[in-house]
């Protein structure tokens, strides 16, 4: 882990009625660390992320960000949504400026920061466009810019590239890595893609079981900045296999089903 923990999840548990979703789940994210969360669909990884964002409440345990207990959304946290979450009635500029405008930021500062964010994600020239005029990839670039412009201390990524076509997804993954290298910050990256989890993360946290708990934590020792060549490296492939087994091998004594 690089630096002190920015995010601490301690003994988190969550129930929906009779359904136990999370139980005794603990993890940390460092100040300049990307932690990927993978798990089978329905394992509650997005729910966990929403709890960290303050959108859902835990039934037990605690979430702290920079020592501050999360009970509602904190201003130092930003989020990128799976389906982009742009407001269709705002143009790209206004969508990206949304968070700053809510905080009554001075106009010239909004101007400066939004321009920089638009430049950063490569959307210059599309400021006046409405979301329906843009491709999914461009919409998510805007979603990313909207989160980054807040200069968050913790960035929450809720399967941000899963609704985007495969080619654009790869492109955006490396662009996000490039942006992160310029301004490293704590990031919690929820994904259902093992490749993506390994590619993005400094650590990969594997959630599994019902209720979900941390089944394994894998440290990713791939060098940064991460170039496209890493996906072909033996270290990458080995790690991907490990995570795969973490996910799909049943623990012995639990109807053991060993997969190749």
């Amino acid at each position, binding site marked *: 882990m690089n630096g002190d923990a920015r995010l601490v999840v301690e003994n988190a548990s969550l129930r929906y009625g009779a359904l136990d979703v999370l139980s005794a789940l603990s993890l940390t994210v460092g100040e300049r660390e990307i932690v990927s969360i993978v798990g089978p669909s329905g394992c509650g990884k997005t729910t966990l992320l929403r709890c960290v964002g303050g959108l859902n409440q835990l039934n037990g345990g605690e979430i702290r960000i920079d020592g501050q207990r999360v009970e509602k959304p904190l201003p130092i946290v*930003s*989020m990128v*949504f799976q389906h982009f*979450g742009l407001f*269709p009635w705002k*143009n790209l500029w206004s969508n990206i400026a949304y968070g700053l405008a809510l905080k009554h930021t001075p106009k010239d500062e909004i101007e400066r920061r939004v321009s920089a964010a638009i430049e950063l994600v490569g959307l210059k020239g599309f400021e006046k466009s409405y979301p329906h*005029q843009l491709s999914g990839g461009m919409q998510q670039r805007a979603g990313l810019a909207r989160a980054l412009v807040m200069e968050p201390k913790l960035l929450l990524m809720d399967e941000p590239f899963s609704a985007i076509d495969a080619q654009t997804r790869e492109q955006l993954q490396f662009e996000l890595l490039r942006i992160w290298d310029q301004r490293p910050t704590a990031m919690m990256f929820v994904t259902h893609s093992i490749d993506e989890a390994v590619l993005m993360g400094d650590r990969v946290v594997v959630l599994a079981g019902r209720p979900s708990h941390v089944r394994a934590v894998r440290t990713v020792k791939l060098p940064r900045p991460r170039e496209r060549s890493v996906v072909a490296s033996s270290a990458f492939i080995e790690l991907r296999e490990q995570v795969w087994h973490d996910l799909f091998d049943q623990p012995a004594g639990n109807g053991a089903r060993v997969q190749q």
Partner: protein
Amino acid sequence: MAQHQSFESRLARFRLVNAWWIRPACYAVSIVVLLAVWQAFGHSFGVLFVPFTETMRRLWAMLQSGPLLPGLLVSSKLYFVTLLINIVLGVGLGLALARIKLFAAAFEPYIYILYATPTISLVPFVSVIFGFEFGSRVLVSVLISIFPVLLGTLEGARSIPRQHLDVAAIFGSSEAQLWRDVIVPYVTPFAMSGIKQSIALSMVGTLVAEFFLNPDGLAAVLLQGTTIVDSGWVLAVTVFIAAIAVVLVGIGELIERYLVRWRQQAVG
């Protein structure tokens, strides 16, 4: 190659359907056909259903001198008061019902009861309790025409996607900011489509209220022709009212298009 050709022909059809003149042309053809049918029907039917040309002649005469314009003046007042109440009360109640759960629990059933009740059947009660004056007319007219606005707004405000609310919460929106940035813009298209219907229905409401509560305005003019079975008179007044309604709905459409310009379809 076959696929390529079918694409070409689909493209040609797409271009034709989207040509700027195609819609006005279809509109013009439909009007010409309608008028021709009317003309032929009128000639064979005689005085009970006069032809289009005769109707126009009568309309022109009634506009020169006659009760049409004074009647319009009286009806406009009721019409616009009705429409204004529909918009303010319909949108306000719709939002309140959607956002305040207890309010909805208490009042929503009554709204559907009123919606399902033929307003005409309430007219005697209205006249007994409130009399035959302007206020009673407004009440009847509003009861006839408010529901599209009310139910449209309600449906819109109830269907705000959770994701929009999540985004607002994550970026620290206050309740007032949530209304300004999310609820109002999201609900606007729903409310507008209700308002557009209400623009036409308010005309019906106005005429019905005038008809049944001590005839006045355009309804009185219409009634005058009906009692003496003067089909030229009645058709002229009807055409006059219809023309005004078409213009008003058209204006509503322009306002709607401006307010929800962000919802225009993507090109290509």
